[in-house]
């Protein structure tokens, strides 16, 4: 019999509860109705600050629920009738329930400062809050750089300050306590944190609060701090803590805590056994947890209980690791040494900008907790050791020499987001279910939350003796990156030379195109010159894309999508004269389909004579740089996106890479060119360009990440040069930029260090390699047309060059020709030529 679960609230925890229930409820015992107060489904509130990068709410979206879940948006539950077991909503809907889960979350606490209701004062909680803050900032009338105040210097306050910075506002952070992040960080760590964030145009005021907020005669906000300082402001954001939203429970007579929060037991049940409460609205043993991880484990408990299980809240790990304003901050276990007799060991390197502390028991044998600021790379190793024996000298744990090699005990939690132990990972590896990090992610969920444990997962694989094979194929034991370095350092120019010296056999369809790509990236002349012609994939061999009936498509380059009427007419005439199907693509080009091999040279003769070049649609290479119209025509554009897109497309045309590359340039934050869906994308700002990397459409779409902001054009191009060359040299075969970045040790931060800060000292070399590519570019189709030997390969039949392929035929659809697919011949007579060649 199907029963009804009503969930009140669709934040991250409410979402997780529904997701966990749907995952486990194989027989559909529960139908679920969710009421959300916000008008959009649950989103990643933890990543809220990243919304400021592109103002794209869809980037924060969580996975949608399946059809057994009814999600009601924009309708608040206003009444809970426990006797009738019905909830009523603001719109008047009455919804009966068999079980009810309150996931109402919390509201920001706004201290009673006079003037707190003035326009321009905001809280920081929802996407709508951020939109409202943005509207205030954009409407501010002050000349020069705008100023803002964030009241509250905790984790969320610094997040809010970062968001203000992203909007071009200089933030003042006002914290009542004596230091920043008082809950997570101690005085030493906070001191360093303050120094690091003040370099980023933040002003920190600690030990003080706002005593009033008013307006001056020009309408600007003025805040008086209790220490006598006055601040001229354009925007104020309150971020001084949260209060559980328990009013619905309160009015329904459920027990609530002295300081708020719906009282629950270890099963997350309220004083009414049919009503559960999870997340920031729940009060367990007098504690309200303001982090998402405990909320998630409460959600798992309730899902289990609803299905007859007996799990209980396991207690919360309040450890946190974050990157705030680009500064690593981590805090775990008994960070403040509250335990009796606890000892602290501190390594404070003011020069390097790192602070590390471990807290150990009075006998220095047990690790109790710690704090890391500036460099949190040891967090994944240290956090699971909390409550366990310290291996050796505590100083060695955080010492600059890299410390001791640690091996985790088997019951230690490796992934705190999903409560996965080392044992669980080791079992998955030992049973053969997981042979690599993606495998571990798929079968244990470890590494799929915040991702901070991924380096640990790699270590565990190695510990289990799993050697990650990097062999390209049966002919080469090396990875693509290693082959690239071999070819570069030995100056090898042929596949035969490479395979005979560094591999075995005669090669295959994996290693040959890979080596072809490497040789092309190293500027070895025309890709069809000499032996290189034999190792190209069919698309590269005929400089066109093979289609399902064996014909090819022709794609001339249209840089930035800008084209003259004359050129459009030429394309139209070519399409008409050769009877080609014509389609405009998503990459702002025109594809001409249905060309036979022998037609390709004649088609390209016409196109090259009209000034077109190869669009490289066939290659693992740069495809297009899409653009909007930018300042030239658009009312909103802030930079000339068209000129930049053309410049970038011409610069990187013909660049061979491990996977095809796409790019786009948007002239303003409205992002009409969809630059964040590209391998590298550029979005104009009022001060220059923002560069995003690692995005893609396709099977697993991913938004690109910001790697540099407000840079000028020369810097932008230098950074893209470095990014692309580093990718070309080190990525695996057919590895997209997104997967490449995810697979880098240290991920995006490492990439930023290498290409922005030149941490490996290779940037001059990368730039020189790109300069060579730019200098040596020549149109591949012109190279074929000018060479009779290469032209001779474009025949249908070697013994009947003029005869069309009889297996190719077309029919008409919407006024154009499309292929007639021949039935796949019967295979029973595979050795009967009449059967297969029909």
């Amino acid at each position: 019999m199907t029963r009804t679960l009503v969930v009140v609230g669709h934040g991250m925890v409410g979402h997780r509860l529904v997701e966990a229930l749907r995952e486990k409820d194989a027989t559909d015992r529960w139908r679920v109705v969710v009421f959300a107060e916000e008008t959009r489904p649950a989103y990643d509130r933890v990543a809220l600050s990243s919304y400021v990068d592109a103002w794209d709410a869809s980037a924060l979206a969580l996975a949608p629920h399946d059809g057994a879940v009814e999600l009601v948006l924009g309708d608040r539950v206003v009444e809970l009738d426990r006797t009738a077991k019905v909830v009523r909503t603001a719109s008047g809907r009455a919804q009966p329930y068999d079980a009810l889960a309150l996931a109402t979350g919390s509201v920001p606490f706004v201290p009673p400062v006079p003037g707190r209701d003035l326009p321009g004062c905001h809280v920081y909680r929802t996407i709508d809050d951020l939109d409202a803050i943005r509207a205030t900032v954009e409407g501010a009338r002050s000349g020069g750089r705008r100023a803002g105040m964030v009241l509250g210097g905790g984790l969320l306050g610094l997040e809010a300050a970062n968001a203000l910075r992203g909007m071009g506002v200089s933030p003042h952070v006002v914290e009542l306590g004596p230091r920043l992040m008082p809950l997570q960080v101690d005085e030493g760590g906070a001191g360093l944190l303050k120094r690091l964030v003040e370099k980023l145009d933040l002003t920190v005021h600690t030990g003080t609060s706002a005593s009033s907020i008013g307006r001056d005669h020009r309408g600007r906000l003025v805040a008086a701090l209790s220490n006598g300082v006055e601040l001229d402001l354009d925007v104020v954001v309150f971020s001084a803590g949260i209060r559980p939203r328990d009013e619905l429970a309160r009015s329904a007579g459920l027990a609530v805590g002295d300081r708020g929060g719906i009282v629950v037991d270890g099963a997350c049940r309220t004083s009414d056994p049919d009503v559960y409460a999870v997340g920031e609205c729940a009060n367990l043993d007098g504690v309200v947890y303001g982090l998402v991880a405990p909320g998630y484990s409460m959600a798992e408990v309730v899902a289990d209980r609803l299905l007859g299980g007996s799990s209980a809240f396991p207690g919360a790990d309040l450890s946190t690791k974050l990157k705030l304003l680009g500064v690593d901050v981590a805090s775990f276990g008994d960070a403040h040494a509250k335990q009796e007799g606890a000892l602290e060991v501190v390594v404070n390197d003011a020069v390097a900008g790192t602070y590390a502390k471990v807290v150990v028991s009075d006998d220095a044998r047990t690790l109790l907790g710690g704090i890391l600021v500036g460099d949190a790379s040891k967090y994944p190793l240290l956090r699971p050791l909390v409550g366990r024996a310290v291996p050796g000298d505590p100083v060695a744990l955080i010492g600059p020499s890299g410390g001791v090699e640690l091996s985790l005990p088997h019951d230690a939690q490796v992934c705190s987001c999903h409560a996965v132990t080392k044992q669980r990972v080791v079992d998955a590896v030992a049973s053969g279910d997981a042979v690599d990090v993606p495998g571990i992610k798929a079968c244990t969920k470890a590494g799929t939350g915040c991702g901070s444990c991924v380096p640990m997962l790699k270590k565990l694989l190695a510990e289990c003796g799993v050697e990650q094979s990097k062999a390209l194929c049966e002919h080469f034991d090396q990875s693509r990156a290693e082959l690239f370095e071999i070819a570069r350092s030995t100056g090898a120019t042929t596949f035969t030379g490479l395979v005979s010296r560094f591999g075995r056999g005669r090669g295959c369809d994996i290693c040959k195109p890979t080596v072809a790509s490497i040789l092309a990236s190293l500027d070895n002349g025309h890709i069809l010159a000499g032996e290189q012609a034999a190792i190209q994939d069919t698309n590269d061999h005929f400089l066109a894309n093979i289609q399902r009936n064996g014909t090819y498509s022709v794609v001339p380059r249209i840089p930035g999508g800008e084209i003259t009427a004359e050129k459009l007419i030429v394309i139209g005439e070519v399409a008409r004269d050769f009877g080609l199907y014509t389609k405009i693509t998503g990459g702002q080009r025109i594809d001409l389909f249905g060309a036979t091999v022998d037609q390709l040279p004649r088609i390209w003769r016409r196109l090259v004579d009209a000034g077109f070049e190869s669009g490289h649609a066939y290659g693992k290479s740069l495809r297009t740089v899409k653009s909007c119209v930018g300042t030239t025509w658009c009312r909103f554009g802030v930079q000339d996106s068209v000129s930049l897109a053309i410049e970038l497309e011409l610069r990187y045309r013909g660049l061979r890479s491990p996977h095809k590359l796409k790019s786009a340039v948007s002239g303003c934050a409205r992002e009409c060119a969809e630059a964040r869906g590209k391998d590298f994308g550029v979005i104009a700002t009022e001060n220059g360009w923002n560069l995003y990397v690692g995005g893609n459409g396709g099977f697993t779409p991913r938004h690109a990440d910001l790697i540099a902001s407000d840079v000028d054009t020369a810097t932008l191009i230098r950074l893209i040069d470095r990014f692309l060359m580093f990718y070309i040299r080190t990525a695996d075969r057919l590895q997209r930029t997104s997967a490449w970045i995810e697979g880098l040790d240290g991920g995006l931060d490492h990439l930023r260090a290498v290409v922005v800060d030149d941490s490996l000292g290779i940037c001059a070399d990368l730039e020189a390699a790109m300069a060579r590519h730019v200098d040596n570019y020549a149109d591949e189709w012109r190279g074929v047309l000018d060479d009779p030997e290469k032209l001779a390969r474009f025949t249908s039949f070697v013994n009947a060059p003029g005869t069309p392929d009889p297996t190719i035929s077309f029919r008409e659809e919407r006024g154009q020709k499309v292929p007639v697919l021949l039935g796949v011949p019967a295979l029973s007579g595979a050795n009967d030529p009449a059967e297969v060649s029909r």
Partner: protein
Amino acid sequence: MTPVCELSALLPDRGVAALLPDGSQVAVFLTSAGTVHALGNIDPFSGAAVLSRGIVGDRGGVPVVVSPVYKQAFELTSGTCLDDPSTGVPVHPVVVADGVVQVGSP
């Protein structure tokens, strides 16, 4: 036997297509080891006449051509598909005489 082209017209480890008098198509390959092979040109998985445009190499030491459409490998000597041994393409006899490649019926 039908003469199809000069041996010198073939690129090592690459194929060409030829038309036989009965209207069937063959894919003729010269391997880097110096051997010449002729297989039916029609890829049984896509129905397209494209096998001559595949990459030639070896799988476990067995010389193969890989279809450019869905990437199945076909043994050059037997025409058998290594990815699905119940499938294959016909093999045509080949003779090279006086530098001319001649192909017969399978």
